[in-house]
């Protein structure tokens, strides 16, 4: 009897410990984000207050209003940055997906010489640190006159994303049985038709998750963008964030507001496809 009670007590302690651990872990994950959101809604006086004001006394959307009301107010052309970010990220994602689908299909469906070598070569191009790549790219782009243009940054991001999209999409095409496409071809489809009618719809979740990753990479990239952009013509949000840091002072509230603006599209997109995200990554990579 006594042993039973001891056992039950131990189980209970374990389960409580588990809950506490889980709660703490989740708090650590969420807290920085929540703190940013909260700070963006408070007046600067409260952020800088000493001793700290823990419970916000007044909530206002001033920072957002100032940010979106143009250059005059906050001094930062957020709308331009936002538009640049969207245009560059979406375009480069679409192109990277198209190239990735072609490449992934080739790796999944054909045998050819030097296959694993080419594959490894593709992956190695991705390992080049952005800042190391930015030095020669800066030089080349300046010579070609495509520095500070959408085109230049899109080109760079496509190259950045292609290896990873090929990797993920390759894994997904491998999961689609070859027989299905062959059956379609026997029924009179061309290979092209078989791809679009049979294989593409089946691999769509994987392609979606590859797309999200490509989008997030372009949306969040800083090392290349900080050197290849100069003005509102092509500056993206991550680079724009630095506008809030002056020589000695930082406009914390404005920065927090911009941070929220940056994270919201990324979060929304991820939630839409989050179901496919994990399965996409794992099955693509494990069985790939």
């Amino acid at each position, binding site marked *: 009897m006594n042993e039973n009670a001891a056992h039950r007590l131990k189980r209970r302690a374990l389960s409580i410990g*588990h809950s506490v*651990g*889980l709660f703490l*872990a*989740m708090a650590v*994950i*969420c807290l*920085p984000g929540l*703190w940013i959101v909260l700070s963006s809604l408070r007046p600067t006086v409260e*952020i*800088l*207050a000493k001793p700290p004001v*823990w419970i916000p006394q007044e909530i206002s959307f001033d920072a957002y209003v100032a940010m979106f009301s143009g250059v005059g107010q906050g001094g930062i052309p957020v709308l331009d940055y936002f538009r640049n970010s969207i245009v560059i990220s979406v375009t480069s994602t679409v192109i990277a997906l198209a*190239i*990735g689908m*072609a*490449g992934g299909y*080739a790796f999944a469906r054909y045998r*050819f010489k030097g296959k694993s070598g080419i594959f*490894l070569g*593709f*992956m*190695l191009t*991705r*390992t*080049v*640190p*952005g*800042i*190391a*790549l930015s*030095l*020669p790219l800066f*030089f*080349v782009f300046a010579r070609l006159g495509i520095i500070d243009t959408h085109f230049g940054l899109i*080109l*760079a991001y*496509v*190259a950045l994303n*292609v*290896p990873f999209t*090929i990797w993920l999409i390759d894994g997904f095409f491998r999961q689609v049985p070859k027989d299905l496409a062959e059956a379609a071809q026997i029924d009179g489809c061309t290979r092209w038709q078989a791809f679009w009618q049979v294989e593409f719809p089946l691999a769509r979740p994987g392609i979606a998750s590859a797309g999200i990753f490509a989008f*997030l990479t372009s*949306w*969040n990239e*800083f*090392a290349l963008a900080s050197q290849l952009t100069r003005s509102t013509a092509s500056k993206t949000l*991550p680079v724009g*964030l630095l506008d809030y840091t002056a020589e000695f002072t930082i406009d914390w509230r404005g*920065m927090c507001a911009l*941070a929220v603006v940056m994270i919201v599209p*990324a979060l929304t997109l*991820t*939630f839409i496809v*989050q179901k496919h*995200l994990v399965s996409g*990554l*794992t099955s693509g990579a*494990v*069985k790939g």
Partner: protein
Amino acid sequence: MKFPRPSAPTLLLLPAFIVLAAVVVVPLLLSLWSSFTPFRLTKPDSIWIFVGLRNYANLLSDWEFWVAFGRTVLLLTVALNLEMLLGLGLAVLVEKASRGQRVLRTIMMFPMMFSPILVGFQFKFMFNDNIGLVNNALQALGLTDRAIPWLIDGNLAFIAILVAEVWLSTAVFAIFILAGLMAMPREPMEAARVDGCTPWQTFRYVTWPFVMPFAFIAMTIRSLDIARAYDIVKIMTDGGPAKRTELLWTLIARTGYADSRMGMANAMSYFAIILSIVFTFYFFRKLAAARQQIGAEW
């Protein structure tokens, strides 16, 4: 027909080849050449002066460079190991949860959506010695009455950067290890328990070997974009104070753009590139071996 028609895989891979050649390979060749010259952005003609390995020779004896190099390796090693351990812990915690798994999993992935530059800024804000959350909390709890100079002291700044980096990237490990845990068959664990294994033994000899390939995938993915730490450091300390948190990447940026010594910066870049390739290659090999161990097809 004079030219044989190119085969289907060639055609399909052609766009990828072209883009990667244009944006990565050709610029890298250019930077390789310029690493043999005293090239300065302000003196464009200097790209034609060939000095052989002088830049590299200078680097080899440059103490500052090797300190930054060593610090980068240290940061990567500590960060990757910590992320692996914490990711494992987090995955086990979430896997054991009986309710709300989907919500927990979503929250777990939360940091992955953050831009590294954003994470850098966020932690710069939190570690601010005057108005930061960390100091405010420590003071409010009465643990200390002075403002800890988190980003001003060299060692503390290194820790702050490490915290930011770990916060950002633990999710990658947690997700993969969790996927591994969920894909794991139940029978071996039950068999182990029947055979009288302690929970620790079950974990060490049954669960871990099965989950390991998943951890290595996460490692491989992480090592692919390991240099993202640049963004965090750039905004948190920018290599300061007095170069005490200078990493290879911030050093490259400073030498290349601020001092406009492109040739020298490109020579440094090659060290950084080789470092990344070594990391990736190592984990690729490990991954292949681990895959074979669980009998997955390559």
